[in-house]
């Protein structure tokens, strides 16, 4: 009897494992799959959760995305691991296309970057220009949280330090390099009473998470150097035979279409628009 029970249990357990292993992979859909590498902002804000189902309904293509910093997204594209990129670092993107890694780059929406910080504003940067704000932060050694991860936001932040006449404050004790995504970095800034640079979309999402009453507030905005342009880039099929160029180009056409542009403009949190469509 005991032996029988043991055998039964062993069979049950192995059967359970086998079921897990052998169950069909495509439990959900057998549609063609388009793989995209994107930045954390499009994922964290929930924009892709809205766009993906509509894209699938319109074209029958399932969109799967990995959300990483723009630097890593470009690397994944260069290694042919994805079919398309949705990123926001125009200079790095142009280089990517010129080097032959990507084709059909299309700009399709923008928002802007803002400098946020504690309400007490210890370095008194509220309403100043970017250059003035960074100078005040630097001279008062006020804590500043940087993404520090080669993302699009990080690339822009570095260029802002440079254009304001500073080297990157890499070793300064007040300069906190988080190495994490945008919302995670905002949360670290909140814990440390630090300033940080963020895209407006992610900030609105953070505001919504905090039920509209966040400890960090917008201090610097509206500077022309703070424009944040998003683009899609298809991976060059001549260099990457595995890349699904046909599907990628369908996505590019779809996201720049009037209907999708409208959808992006209508995407709101707390009644605020996060992205402004601008496909040509």
């Amino acid at each position, binding site marked *: 009897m*005991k032996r029988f*029970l*043991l055998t039964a*249990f*062993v069979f*049950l*357990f192995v059967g359970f*494992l086998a079921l*897990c*292993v052998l*169950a069909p*992979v495509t*439990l*959900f859909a057998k549609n063609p799959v388009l*793989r995209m590498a994107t930045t954390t902002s499009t994922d*964290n804000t929930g924009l892709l*959760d809205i766009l993906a189902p509509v894209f699938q309904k319109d074209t029958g293509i399932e969109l*799967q*995305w*990995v*959300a990483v910093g723009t630097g890593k997204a470009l690397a994944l594209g260069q*290694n*042919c*691991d994805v079919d398309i990129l949705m990123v926001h670092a125009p200079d790095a993107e142009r280089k990517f296309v010129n080097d032959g890694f990507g084709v059909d780059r299309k700009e399709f929406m923008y928002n802007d970057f803002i400098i946020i910080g504690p309400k007490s504003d210890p370095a008194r940067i509220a309403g100043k220009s970017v250059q003035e704000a960074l100078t005040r932060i630097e001279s008062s050694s006020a804590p500043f949280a940087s993404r520090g991860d080669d993302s699009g936001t990080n690339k822009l932040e570095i260029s802002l330090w440079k254009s304001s006449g500073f080297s990157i404050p890499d070793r300064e004790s007040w300069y906190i390099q988080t190495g*994490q*995504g945008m*919302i*995670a970095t*905002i*949360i670290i800034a909140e814990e440390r009473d630090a300033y940080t640079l963020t895209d407006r979309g992610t900030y609105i999402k*953070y505001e919504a*998470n905090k039920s509209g009453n966040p400890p960090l507030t917008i201090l610097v905005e509206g500077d022309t150097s703070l424009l944040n342009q998003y683009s899609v880039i298809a991976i060059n099929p001549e260099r*990457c035979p*595995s890349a699904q160029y046909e599907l990628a180009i369908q996505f590019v056409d779809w996201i720049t279409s009037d209907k999708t542009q409208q959808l992006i403009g209508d995407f709101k949190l707390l009644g605020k628009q996060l992205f402004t469509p601008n496909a040509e």
Partner: protein
Amino acid sequence: MGYIAEGVVTALKLLVRGDPETYSAVFTTLRASSISILASLVIGIPLGFLLGYYNFPGKRQIRALVDTLLALPTVVVGLVVYALITRRGPLGGLGLLFTIPGISVAQTILILPIVISLTATAISNLDIRFKRTVMTLGADRRRTAITALYESRYGVLAAAVAAYGRAIGEVGVSMMIGGNIKWHTRTITTAIALETGKGQFAMGIALGLILLLLAFIINWILQIMKRKT
């Protein structure tokens, strides 16, 4: 404290209401870790047996190497496997990146040292008189080896439990190789990392509790199996 209490409530809600995203992550976790545990047992038990049962030159060095690999960081395994299976890598043609089998390959490498090391320990810890006793009873060499494996079954089971625990609890490999793709390669641990990154701490704790519950159920089944022997 608030996050923890909120986490417990959220965990119950997710489970009772049958939240599809949570169940998808649970299923992905089970699937990836089950493939890796089966593969690592099939490869690891024979190797562990060889290492524990026979004496040969270099045995101690190999043993030291296997024990060193117990400390393999998940991100290093993730990086090495990524370098191999990226489309530009030597195994790129298999298309394993951002898939569950890809996660399993990396997890198998991660937990294989645990299976080999603990199996070898269990076998070599058998009483020295064991071999002679069994042989006096008329067993041939093959029979003696099989009996040795049977006698150390609890040790092998412990190896499986430890290895399974590491597989379902790891996040580095699942994140790097799986890519945390919603509905496809999002495991419980990568979902926790995502929720934490978004500042949804209660949700992260809820998922952590669900993972622990899962581990408890599996260990409970193994306990029953052990008692019945």
